[in-house]
């Protein structure tokens, strides 16, 4: 049995919103075009310091998500680069037609930042869980969808988004996560990152679940199962090559994400393998309107813990 002595599970944990606001402030200092747009979500987006530094450049439209996204589109028309910051559940559910028409189809330079996504709001329940956001946005053409896994990747994704012209959606996690990338990490769309090499089975994950998949791989390694871990921050465009390689080279794929099991990262992977190289995929996610419980409780319940992911992988290779 291999001794795992520097498990990622033992590292300090970070709320990615902190990296978010820090990076947004840096970007705003560098580029006067950058503004924030919120729906009374200054506090929940941790933007109080940003507002202090740039009082005119934090636009609070009130509790009005449709207007929020429309306003962002108009700001982009005026040459600004708006970063919309709102709870992902409301941003995507309430303003979906604005996202489709005013952002994606209009190809405006709007960055949508879905805060506290997945089941981060735990006990606040399914109305506040944003497990559908990825599937909803994936169905819309022209949108880049990024689910960063740690503060470094959150910052890198923001920097990348600020530099490209066009619509980007970034999930910004609230549930704390360890740092999984080196400080030098830069984000590249459509590229998976191999967090761990392996040839028996592949774990594909992103966001708050990635480190759990990495710990699962540690556990599997201790049993002699060599799990490849692919980080897939870019849900769209997807790294088709990396997925196909995993399908070809390992016995199967486990996808694990803080999302619904219908149409999210798991759906994207499934659509890819059936069209390129059929393979077994187990899709882990949130399959229902979750009952009451904390975010951690819910992740465990749905097998999104290291143990749950490892179990699923074991079943796949057995």
């Amino acid at each position, binding site marked *: 049995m291999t001794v795992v002595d520097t498990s990622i599970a033992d590292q300090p944990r970070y709320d990615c919103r902190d990296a978010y606001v820090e990076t947004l402030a840096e970007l705003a200092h560098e580029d006067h075009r950058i503004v924030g747009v919120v729906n*009374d979500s200054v506090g929940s987006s941790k933007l109080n310091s940003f507002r202090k530094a740039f009082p005119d450049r934090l636009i609070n439209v009130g509790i009005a998500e449709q207007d929020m996204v429309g306003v962002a589109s108009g700001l982009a028309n005026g040459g600004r680069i708006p970063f919309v910051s709102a709870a992902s*559940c409301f941003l995507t559910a*309430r303003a979906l037609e604005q996202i489709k028409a005013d952002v994606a189809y209009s190809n405006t330079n709007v960055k949508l930042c879905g805060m506290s996504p997945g089941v981060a709001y735990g*006990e606040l*329940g399914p109305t506040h869980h944003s497990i559908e956001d990825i599937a909803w946005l994936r169905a819309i053409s022209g949108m880049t969808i990024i689910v960063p896994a740690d503060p470094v990747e959150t910052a890198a994704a923001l920097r990348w988004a600020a530099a490209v012209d066009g619509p980007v959606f970034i999930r910004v996690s609230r549930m704390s996560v360890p740092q999984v990338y080196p400080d030098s990490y830069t984000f590249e769309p459509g590229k998976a990152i191999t967090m761990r090499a392996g040839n028996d089975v592949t774990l594909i994950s992103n966001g708050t679940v990635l480190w759990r998949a990495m710990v699962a791989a540690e556990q599997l390694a201790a049993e002699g199962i060599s799990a490849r871990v692919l980080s897939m921050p870019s849900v769209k465009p997807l790294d088709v090559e990396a997925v196909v390689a995993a399908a070809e080279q390992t016995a199967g794929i486990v996808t694990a994400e803080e999302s619904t099991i219908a149409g999210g990262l798991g759906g994207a992977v499934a659509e890819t393998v059936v069209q390129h190289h059929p393979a077994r995929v187990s899709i882990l996610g949130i399959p229902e309107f979750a009952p009451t419980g*904390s975010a951690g409780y819910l992740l465990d319940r749905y097998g999104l813990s290291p143990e749950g992911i490892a179990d699923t992988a074991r079943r796949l290779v057995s």
Partner: protein
Amino acid sequence: MSKAALSVEHTTMPLLGRLPAHSSRAEQVAHIAEAARQIRIQDLKLVYHAGAGHIGGDFSAIDILATLYGAVLEIGPETVADPERDRFILSKGHVAGALYTTLAAFGFLPITELATFLKPLSALNGHPNRTKVAGVEANTGPLGHGLPIAVGHALSAKLDVSLRRTYVLVGDGELQEGSNWEAMMAASQYQLDRLTVIVDRNRLQQGATTKETNDLDPLPEKAAAFGFAVVEVNGHDHGELLDVLSAVPFRPGKPTFVIAHTHKGHPVSFMSNNVAWHHKVPNPAEYQQAMTELETVGQPRLAVSPRLDKELR
């Protein structure tokens, strides 16, 4: 002082009932006042021991909830599924804690069940769920949903030629959602005069005042231009609330828009009208002080801020 996790020991509220039908107005007002006091005490325990909740908005709304369930709504534990019951829809679903406590106070759920608030698999989620809690009419939480639902229900009553009434409680910040104004146009178009919209006008939202964020004023003019009969009351005065909420229809042919002037966190001195208490949880010292204030007043003190006094009719 260390804090114990929420348990049945913290569910100490007495079970309150409806007064007999022939009770005087004074008796009713006293009953509502005592109910509101008990609900606040219990709700404070819930939030403190569960370590989560929206106490500012809870306390802002409790006098309205106590008035509705204590003396206005034709609904009780035994008629909770009666098609002809009055409907109350809590649109500002983040004050689920206040709603559960009120429902428990009036017998819709066992008071001891409050001990499960926010716990794994509890029916008492952070936002109300009609499929799990008797007495809840709609799964709210995202703002701006309750008013359209209330309009739908009021329409159903009208189609049924029924006298059942529909009440919906909305936050003032919540009125920034356009869905409300869609619903208000429709309510007026369909002349839903048995629909009463109650605005918890505490002038605070999540992060700031409504005025700083996206001013609702002149709110009475807005509602009137959308075809509503508008009436303003002190939202912590049980007598005023009782009179206005019982007056259905308020103006025949028009839906009613009750602007209930309130304070978030009322009547706790350090919470009242303080935006910080939107979803803050008291520390032990704050808990003790709040509890003392709630227990020592015979009934919730009326709002004292000069702003509020000036603005009331």
